[in-house]
């Protein structure tokens, strides 16, 4: 069984190791870095052509069992096979029995069954999959969403990076400035009282009056802005700019209003957390948000995996299949990359409490749209789901491939505190062309 402390977000792999580095940072001295490093920083990195205009990252926190979802081991001995049955997909593969609808759209997605890394603790595995980098004691890396916010900025008056519903571990800015942090809704679209607060002007204030207020604010703010620079000040300024664009654009605001969807569509996704979160994600990318991260469920199924999957998986199945179908019908699938990831998979053998424990050596991720092959299975795990058998897919490969599809060069260097340049993906970068259409 897992140990509570090790799973806690407080386990100190996590707290910002930025602080650690700062003592050693050159910047603190007011002295400049060596010329060699400066040269490196100004090197130019060719920008790959973007196939994906936006990303929906569906994150299944806790570590989703690959055996009970994308990679069932139906011919393994029962202690490996687990309690669930299978369903045949449209492409002739097998998924878990609770993935019936996803099986029917398997011809539109790619499943990578050979994802692999070595971090079996939640916080370290999450760091891998959210940032694309191995955790380091010296530095906290930015989430992939924050890198997108940093590199590509806002579009159509919307924040570039949105989290549904709340910010989770490693979804923040890491070593990048606070301005690139996500906008988290703070409220669940599945709830009947769902509303993103403060988007509308207060009653009695019309656009004209608001413009006047904005003018006045810039007069008052100018004095102080002229005095000093600080990361927190820049961050606040950029959030004010985002807020202004959001408030002044009815289209942008409407993106957050899930009630604008017909009840038919809403129930097609499922009137539950998975359904409404994925539907809102679609609305947001449709309106211009570049990167949406949504979390769904608790997948840390150390005990009673059969019941836990029964409770959790069907609504995911319905929502995900609907999301892919919906995007495809709207002609958005080819430029929207949909990722389904988790920090790791689960142990090959069922444990004493009828569950599975942490297993990073091999697990599955699903990718769809945004230039990914349709109806493709990449790599495989061995017969007991213990090791990658073919085409092991590393974290660096995963991150490099995703960044390439979004049009960001994973080898590009960003400035970390003290001006030390850091590659976006620090592992051996390797674009995987096999999964691209």
């Amino acid at each position, binding site marked *: 069984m897992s140990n509570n402390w090790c799973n806690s977000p407080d386990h100190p792999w996590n707290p910002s190791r930025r602080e650690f580095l700062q*003592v*050693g940072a050159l910047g603190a*001295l007011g002295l400049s870095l060596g010329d060699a490093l400066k040269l490196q920083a100004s090197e130019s990195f060719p920008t790959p052509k973007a196939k994906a205009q936006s990303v929906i990252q569906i994150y299944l926190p806790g570590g989703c069992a690959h055996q009970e979802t994308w990679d069932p081991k139906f011919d393994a001995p029962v202690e490996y096979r687990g309690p669930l049955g299978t369903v045949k997909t449209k492409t002739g593969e097998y998924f878990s029995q609770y993935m019936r609808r996803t099986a029917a759209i398997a011809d539109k997605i790619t499943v990578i069954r050979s994802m692999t890394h070595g971090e079996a603790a939640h916080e370290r595995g999450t760091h891998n999959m959210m940032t694309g980098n191995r955790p380091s004691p010296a530095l906290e890396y930015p989430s992939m969403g924050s890198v997108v916010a940093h590199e590509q900025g806002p579009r159509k008056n919307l924040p570039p990076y949105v989290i549904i519903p709340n910010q989770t571990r490693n979804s923040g800015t890491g070593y990048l400035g606070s301005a690139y942090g996500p906008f988290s809704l703070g409220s669940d679209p599945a709830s009947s009282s769902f509303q993103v607060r403060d988007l509308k002007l207060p009653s009695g204030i019309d656009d004209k009056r608001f413009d006047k207020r904005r003018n006045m604010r810039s007069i008052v703010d100018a004095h102080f802005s002229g005095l000093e620079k600080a990361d927190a000040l820049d961050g606040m300024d950029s959030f004010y700019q985002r807020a202004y664009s959001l408030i002044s654009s009815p289209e942008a605001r409407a993106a957050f209003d899930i009630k604008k969807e017909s009840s038919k569509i809403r129930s097609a996704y499922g009137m539950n957390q998975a359904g409404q979160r994925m539907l809102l994600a679609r609305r947001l990318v449709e309106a211009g948000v570049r990167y949406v991260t949504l979390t769904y469920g608790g997948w840390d199924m150390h005990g009673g995996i059969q019941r836990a999957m029964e409770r959790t998986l069907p609504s995911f199945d319905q929502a995900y299949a609907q999301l892919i179908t919906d995007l495809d019908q709207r002609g958005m699938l080819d430029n929207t990359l949909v990722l389904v990831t988790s920090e790791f998979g689960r142990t090959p053998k069922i444990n004493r409490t009828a569950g599975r424990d942490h297993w990073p050596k091999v697990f599955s991720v699903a990718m769809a749209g945004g230039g990914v092959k349709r109806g493709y299975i990449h790599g495989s795990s061995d017969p007991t789901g213990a090791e990658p058998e073919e085409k092991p897919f590393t974290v660096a490969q995963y991150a490099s491939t995703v960044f390439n599809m979004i049009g960001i060069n994973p080898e590009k260097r960003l400035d970390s505190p003290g001006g030390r340049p850091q590659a976006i993906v620090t592992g051996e970068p390797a674009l995987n062309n096999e999964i691209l259409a």
Partner: protein
Amino acid sequence: MTMNKLIVTLCGLTLASASLMAEAPKLVDVRVYPADIHLSSKIDKQSIVVQGWYSDSTSKDVTAQAKLSVGDAKIAKSDSNWITPLKDGKTVAKVSFGGRSFDLPVTVTNSSVTPALSFYQDIVPVFTKASCNTGGCHGAASGKDGFMLSLFGYDPDGDYHRVTREQVGRRINLALPDDSLILEKGAGRVTHTGGKLFDQDSKLYQTVRAWIADGAKKDPSTVAKVIGVEIYPVQAVLKGKGSTQKLTIRAKYSDGTDRDISDMAAYITNNDLAADVKQDGTLVAGEPGEAFVMARYDAFTVGAQVLVIPDTENFQWPNTPENNFVDTLVHNKLKKIRVTPSGLCDDKTFVRRAYIDIVGQLPKPDVVKAFVENKDAKKRDKLVDELIERPEFNDIWVMKFAELLQIRTDNNRFLYKSAYQYFEWLKERFQENMPLDDIVKKLITANGDTFVNPAANFYKVEQTPLKLSENTAQIFMGMRIQCAQCHNHPFDRWTMDDYYAFQAFFAQIGRKRGVDTRSSVVYNRRSGGVRHPVGNKDMKPKFLGAEVPEIKSGEDRRAILAEWLASPRNPWFAKNMANVVWAHFFGKGIVEPVDDVRISNPPSNPELLAELGKRFSDSKYNFRELVANICKSRTYQLAAVSNESNQLDTRNFSKGYIRRIRAEVLLDVINQVTDAPDKFSGIPLGSRSVEIVDGRTSNYFLTTFGRSTRGSVCSCEVSIDPNLSQALHLLNGSTVNGKLSRAPWLQDLIKKKAQPEDVVNEIYWRCLSRSATDREMAKLKEFFTDPKEYTNSYYDIFWAVLNSKEFFFNH
């Protein structure tokens, strides 16, 4: 000295203007390490390091230039920088440099004895030095390639077994020592995944070889253990790339002997760009910057701070005045790193800053104006003294301690009544300015009914010895010892033994239901213990990093702990508390984060932290005096405006740091300027949000701006990072918009048909502690053309001011 003078004179002659030349730095101090020398065997030796400090705050390794000799040449002799024994007795080592001389006492014992090599003392260090036993190699939990060693040698007995007994005949060869596999592998003579680690003629190889040749004997159970490691010098300021400083590392053993282990410690730097460290203990300066260099030996890690500055610099210290010791110590660091502090902030800024930080409020306009007019040279000190005596000062610190003590309700387990009593108890202690050590002692030793003695809630909030010991270390010593629950701490000195022995202080706490069934009674159960998960040994209570105290059976272990915990005998308590207070006033601790004190997270200014801690304990833990010392310093009063040299400074306190005002205080000042208080559950209308008793009481504003829920003792519970929701809420949310129009003073001014300029200035004074600048006034007056629009414009300007960074940042 003479040489320097000569150079200066020569230059003066050759150059037209001598003033063009920066004066050559003068030698101001010479430090010799170690302070004493103990040689306790025929082969014992000790290296000496001589460090010169110069008037430009740089240091130089002058060991090679210093003269070294021995007083009584029959007892010991010197060879370059080494002292070696000749005959038992006492003498002195004489060191002289730059006209200064030092006598280091030398004691020689057992000078005719060559001790046998010991597995623990001599061989395990080889494994560590050659990095055989690191986590990536044989130190991994399951070893590597079939051979396992304990991580950094924490289990020498196990290692001995694995080297000599596991797979007998494979790893060592007593007959032909050179054919031993561990030597063949280490020397790279046979295929080895880890490659070649040492040469055949190296000390590492020869030590292991000699031990095997001597029969690879098992250590007697009395073998002396390492009890501490010293590193010298603890600080260096190196000028120019390539300059070096030799380190001397000395291990102390439980039998009273010591050893120079400079060539056997494993060295690590946290910034190899600034300072690299060679495996013989030589620091090599790289690019300008700051590095922390650590030496690991046995279970100990020690560190030294290294600053590297360019040799081409032309830095002139501006001779900034110093208000007290804080400034002296901050300036010492700034001189070393060539940073000029910013100027003093103006009076208006100071009053606003001090009010927000000390009492969590904004100063009234009259107060600011009177302060500016006041000609008293001591007026800033007097303001600090006055604010510290206000009840609102206590509220801020009660709130902070309520966070540390996690005062929050928990359904039926921790009732509001308990939370309220606990909070009030804390408040009374601060109101009477009880010395902090007494407060801590009352908490740690608390017994009795929680409804009668609210301090006993310390044992109701958390119940398990595990959590109680971890929290006690984190709150009062700033240390996160959690790692050592499952494994020896990877970045610090704490072992599992330390962890469970510390936990044992909390092993005999009894709890039962009180007379009122909602309360609990905490008492000394007089029995019970904590067992080490490896070996199941019952652990004797041991202070963290200190001794095992004498405790009689049944005696309250917590009473013994409290006497040590909150006393100068605990090297961390006073420093940690001083750091927590410091961080409140600067937004950054000297150790940052404040509750992550460890060797690999060093303080940015160790001397400052040490002195703050020392003065705090010397003052008998007088909390208000500590705050006064900090706030009266010039350092606290610097302007938040950078100069060329300190633009990038975030850790050395060379300027005022701009901080977003924390959630509770920000809501309180919004309420203050709008005169529209909130009503929080459990406290009367008009109470400020810093007075909220329960961590679970909150509202949208407080949550969005990062108020602590008090769910854990971690300093990370409080967040002052900006985000989009905050901007949206200030722009459109109910807090600002709902309260604006309620401000009675603004309604009065409007009713009185006051002049626009006066109204605008009143808004400015109340919110920003200043009047509008001419430029601002001119621009804002453009909005006053149609008198019918005046009222709206006033509210809009008020809104704009509340939405300005100048308002919600403390600067």
